[in-house]
């Protein structure tokens, strides 16, 4: 078992003919992901990495029965791409695109709140179920199947943590990058709930960072609903207030979003917090011992 994606995932790639879209489509296909279709308006009829390209999601879904979509289109077209997939009831939408205006994402997520659709991202590396299905850009080479579920607001930091686990021989059930934007789709809490319900997942790693209060709410949720052991890491202990640390969401503002508060929130509910990424593997090893 795993969460969100597995061997049954039939993936559609929106923006498949773009540079990034095409590159990562090949990577995904190489990893073994079942890429069934691509969409680029005006480019219908082509093929990329063996997948037929359509002008619209409507056609792509009709023709191929795609049940997940990954989006590589530029920021100004990405909200529309998400909504197009949602309009055709694609139940999992993963938006890699960075730089979507927050106000656009308010509209998009408000619309999705009324739909039975999961959005991962935007501004995220996507997700991977090792050995089964990669949707997005997480390098297939760092993962291995196993018992640890990973959920993260970050990209390369996640790879770092996965790699630290893999090096110790600890594999992963599913790794989910929920993205670094202030307004996004799936949040920690929903992914924690999925891992809690997933029989393969034995421990959970949560990787947070400064900005917002998602980690504090995750801590509350863990105390209430999560029986599996969680190890956390929060990036940005040394980040100053008022400055955006790369991710649009990584900013301490209005007395909110400091790493120390997040760490305190986790520790208060018995979640062990690593001091640096590699220590996560130490802590998981201890727990599993």
């Amino acid at each position, binding site marked *: 078992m795993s969460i969100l994606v597995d061997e049954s995932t039939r993936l559609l790639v929106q923006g498949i003919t773009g540079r990034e879209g095409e590159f990562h489509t090949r990577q995904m296909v190489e990893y073994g992901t079942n890429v069934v279709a691509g969409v680029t308006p005006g480019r219908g009829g082509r093929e990329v990495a063996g997948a037929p390209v359509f002008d619209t999601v409507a056609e792509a879904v009709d023709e191929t029965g795609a049940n997940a979509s990954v989006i590589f289109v530029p920021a100004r077209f990405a909200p529309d791409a998400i909504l197009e997939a949602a309009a055709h009831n694609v139940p999992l939408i993963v938006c890699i695109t960075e730089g979507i*205006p927050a106000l656009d994402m308010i509209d998009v997520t408000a619309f999705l709140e009324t739909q039975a659709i999961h959005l991962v991202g935007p501004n995220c590396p996507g997700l991977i179920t090792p050995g089964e299905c990669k949707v997005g850009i997480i390098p297939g*080479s760092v993962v291995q199947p196993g018992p640890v579920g990973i959920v993260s607001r*970050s*990209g390369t930091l996640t790879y*770092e943590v996965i790699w630290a686990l893999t090096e110790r021989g600890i594999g992963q059930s599913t790794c989910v990058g929920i993205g670094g934007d202030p*307004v996004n789709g799936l949040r920690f809490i929903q992914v924690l709930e999925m891992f809690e319900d997933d029989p393969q997942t034995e421990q959970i790693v949560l990787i947070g960072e400064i900005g917002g209060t998602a980690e504090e709410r995750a801590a509350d949720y863990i105390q209430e609903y999560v029986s599996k052991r969680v190890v956390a890491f929060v990036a940005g202990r*040394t980040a100053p207030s008022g400055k955006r*640390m790369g991710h*649009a969401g990584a900013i301490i503002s*209005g007395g909110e979003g400091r790493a120390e508060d997040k760490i305190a929130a986790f520790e208060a509910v018995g979640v062990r917090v690593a001091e640096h990424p590699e220590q996560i593997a130490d802590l998981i090893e201890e727990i599993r011992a």
Partner: protein
Amino acid sequence: MKIHEYQAKRLFAKYDIPIPEGGVAETPEEARKIAARLGVPVVVKAQVLVGGRGKAGGIRLSSNPDDAASCAAKILGMEIKGLTVKKVLIDEAADIQDELYLGVVLDRANRRVVMMGSSEGGVDIEEVAASTPEKIVRATIDPLLGLRDFQARELAYGIGLDKNVIRAFGVIAHSLYRAYMENDASLAEINPLVVTGDGKLLAVDGKMNIDDSGLFRHLNIEAMRDIGAEDESERHARAADLSYVELDGEIGCMVNGAGLAMATMDIVKLYGSEPANFLDIGGGAQAEKVAEALRIILRDPRVKAVLFNIFGGITRGDEVACGILEALEELDTDVPMVARIVGTRAEEGRQLLADAEMITAGSLRDAAQKAVAAARGELG
């Protein structure tokens, strides 16, 4: 992106929010002329893209043009939190009867825009939130419906506004909301929103931050960017499409990915030093971009060592290594450097750097420890 108080207020004025008469001066003489034109007592206010100018002495009252000029002379050139004041705003002094707060922010937890009002204006709203949260009234705005009249009324009644200014308050609330939405703001606030002696409302101070991701559709706001008022290194970084923030420490960091960059800063501190910067070279960085990043790091004289932490995915380890070597050729520096490259083409990259006699490291822990030691002259 931050804009100056005077820019925010002029933008507000376009939405029919009443602001004081005033003008911007870059010299004491200009300040004198503006004050003379206004012909009334004025406030001289430092225009810097950082808070806390009041406490730093960057806001002064003047009763006549000569005094305004001398106030401007004192403020211009002043350093506030590392930024030099290059402009002052000369505003007609308001007849203040009451000071309110009105702001629009993004509520990330609820994925909604929120309007906040308070009877406690003119002070830091975060302090009000911490000490007397009951004095802040919030209206969560549904994206379908926008700000509604009833919400503006609830704010007005909630902060105990006088009946005779409720209508004017409602108009300003709608205007501020529109200014926020139509400009992709991440923050828009009037603090204080003043009730004057004659029962009018006046936006005496204004602040507006714009969502960088939304800037592409607001060229008018991009044009407000005050290059001179920004940190020079950050400006260079933006030009090179790098994400860079200068800090106070001594270990320069170059990392791919924002989260990993923060984690790298944090581990530097964990092992006893302080990071000199946040720097994310992004995904798939090419050699030239890496070279520019290194140049920016080394412009900071406090940097005593540089730590490269590259987790190859899209980014290729050998590309990064080439960029580093390219930059070093022209830079002629003796700052010690520690490179840790993992993932795609890591081995090739590491070898290139090792051949150039750079210190390399396997784990992040190892890399951080080596960088800290190098900064102390204990390595290299």
